[in-house]
């Protein structure tokens, strides 16, 4: 008779099985609690490295989106400038009417002075403390000047700024104020000032109105730049928003815990744990000694 002798002390085996089951249980609980199956790099080294890059791209997309909302302001300012110039043109046309008395023309000139002030104020629009038509200078761009024929001189510079709104995608976000308001053949302040003078002196009103039209056309053409920029920013905003959704989906598929599966694992671990504990309660309670009288 020869039979295989088994290890009489099974306790260490059971203890190690128990420890393993408890480990499974705590891992599954942690996954359920955090909703993530990567709670430390060793849970999935490659996944953890992907998450680093995913988070970095997500943070970048967020910051591009914030940049976009910060630069979409100049267009509405220019639309007010255009409206003001339209009003100046219609006032000029009205003033050119020969039936107007000199006091009527003085009233029109007075209203135009108001428009001139409004235009100066629009040209000095600031956003978050910075003048948006000053080029890359930080000083107030349009100030009164006794030496300038229009009474206004440009204190900004011709510089422009670009903002990165995507990886390898930068967009010029401003035009120098001098290019918008003081271009040759389209000088806003000069033409309005000339119109005021023409109305006051009742001479050359028609030519002055034509000059204001020229300024109007110039500002309108400059608006196209901002319009294009806004269009591109909107397109980029849409792209970034969908990229963020993609990134968050990717993050979820890399690290997201499969809740149903994890819950099942937890359940299995609990069942196994109970079985192991029951087995441990029973082993080595009995030996032949118990039956010998």
């Amino acid at each position, binding site marked *: 008779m020869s039979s*295989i*002798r*088994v*290890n*009489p*002390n099974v306790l*260490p*085996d059971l203890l*190690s099985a128990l420890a393993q089951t408890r480990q499974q249980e705590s891992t599954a609980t942690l996954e359920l609690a955090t909703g993530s199956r990567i*709670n*430390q*790099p*060793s*849970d*999935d*080294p*490659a996944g*953890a*490295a*992907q*998450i*680093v*890059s995913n*988070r*970095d791209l997500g*943070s*970048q997309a*967020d*910051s*591009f989106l*914030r*940049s976009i909302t*910060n*630069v979409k302001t100049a267009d509405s300012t220019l639309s007010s400038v255009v409206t003001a110039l339209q009003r100046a043109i219609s006032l000029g046309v009205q003033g050119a009417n020969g039936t107007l008395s000199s006091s009527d023309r003085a009233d029109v000139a007075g209203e135009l002075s108001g428009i001139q002030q409004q235009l100066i104020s629009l040209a000095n629009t600031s*956003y*978050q*403390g*910075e*003048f948006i038509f*000053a*080029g*890359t*200078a*930080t000083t107030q761009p349009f100030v009164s000047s006794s030496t300038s024929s229009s009474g206004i001189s440009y204190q900004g*510079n011709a*510089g422009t*700024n*670009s*903002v*990165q709104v995507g*990886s*390898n995608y*930068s967009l010029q*976000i401003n035009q120098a104020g001098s290019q918008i308001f003081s271009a040759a053949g389209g000088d806003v302040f000069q033409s309005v000032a000339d119109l005021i003078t023409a109305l006051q002196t009742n001479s050359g009103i028609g030519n002055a109105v034509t000059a204001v039209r020229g300024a109007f056309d110039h500002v309108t053409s400059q608006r196209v730049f901002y319009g294009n920029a806004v269009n591109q920013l909107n397109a980029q905003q849409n792209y970034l928003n969908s990229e963020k959704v993609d990134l968050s989906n990717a993050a979820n598929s890399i690290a997201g815990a499969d809740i149903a599966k994890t819950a099942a694992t937890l359940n299995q671990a609990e069942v196994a744990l109970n079985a192991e504990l029951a087995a441990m309660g029973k082993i*080595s309670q009995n*030996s*032949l*000694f118990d039956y*010998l009288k």
Partner: protein
Amino acid sequence: MDSGYYAACSALKTQTSALDIVANNVANVSTAGYSRKQPQFGENPPIVLGQLTFGTGVSLENAASIRDPILQIRIQQETGTQGELSAFVNAMQQVQTQFNNQGNDIGTQLSALFASISQLSTSPASIALRQGVLTAASNLASSISTTANNLESQQANLDLSVTQSVDQVNTLTQQIAKVNGQIAALENLHQDASAFIDQRDVLVGQLSNLIDVSQIKTESQISLTTSNGTALVAGTQAFTLTTQPDPSGLEHIFSQGNDVTSQLNSGQLGGLLQVRDHKIPSLLVSLNTLAAGISNSFNAANASGFDLNGHQGADIFVPPAASGAGAAAGMAVAITDPALIAASSDGSAGSNGNLANFSAIHDQTTFNGETPSDFYGSLIFSIGNDVSSGSIEQQASQLVLQQLQDQRGSISGVSLDEEAGNLVQYQRAYDAAARVVDTVNQMLETLINMGTT
């Protein structure tokens, strides 16, 4: 009749001894490393009288310990592997906690720095946004330097563990040498040394857990060396290991004047040394590369533009040493005035032209051919991979060890069922022998009293 009497008496004596062996087995049912003993009975030489041969009973020839020396060596080897892997995994798990991506790690701070630059580009003269960049830069610097400092203190802790393990090794080798002597002394007198052999197996097991051990058996003694031949125990002589700090302050292990540190690659010491001398230093080198790369790139970007005062930009980060050594631990922001960030490319305060040079660092592949974020990702991968593959190996080795222990248990372990069975058997044999003595006694009495009545 005389021979029967003699035989029965020998049986009484022998069965009593066998019962003693059972008692000792039962007593040691929970003793670690105990090998069960089995009585071996032998028939006494018979007496030949003319044509008749009479048996003279039984004697206990041997109480042999049931053990498998080869298996024991396998267990010791696997214990060494287990000791190494568990020390390695424990240490690397502590390292890993420095790199958990839970929001304030290096990767997050790196992204935050570039996000702050991107914000500044929309309003380059804003002091608040400039302050945002400085804060993000200093968060990144402190995140990197804290991580590097923590790694260094972990290295120091491991160093302490190395010294303690060496002390334990020395204690164990001395005990083994002593037990070797006791075994030799007993075996020279042809006495049973199995209790000491069990004890020695336990001690060698503990030693294997600490350091790699190979065994050479000579007669009754064993000699122990590391797998590279560093002597630990030769017979009754133990060779003490000593420690001496190297120039960087880390303890090196010496045996008889030779530095054997790099040769120890199993056991707890092997695991500790691998993390202390290889893993942590290589992580520190990577962190230094990252810190020096970021510091130098940002300083260069700042120098290529003009600050809010129209001056050429100065260093944003404290410039690291040219070698990069200590760059991570010493990483810090060099400026406190937000106006000193050189956002402008032409000297005008509202220009953001130079910020593109900062943003470009995000995609610059000068960190071992990777972008800073990917470089950090690779770092995370290598740490996670070390812990995860170490844990898997440890579990596998645990299973092997468990199987070997089971095998040892199946050979040497005390089974109470068996002992109970043996107990009954020896008791019955004793009872029967006593009955024989009684019977012979009665017969002798009958003989003596013959004719007196």
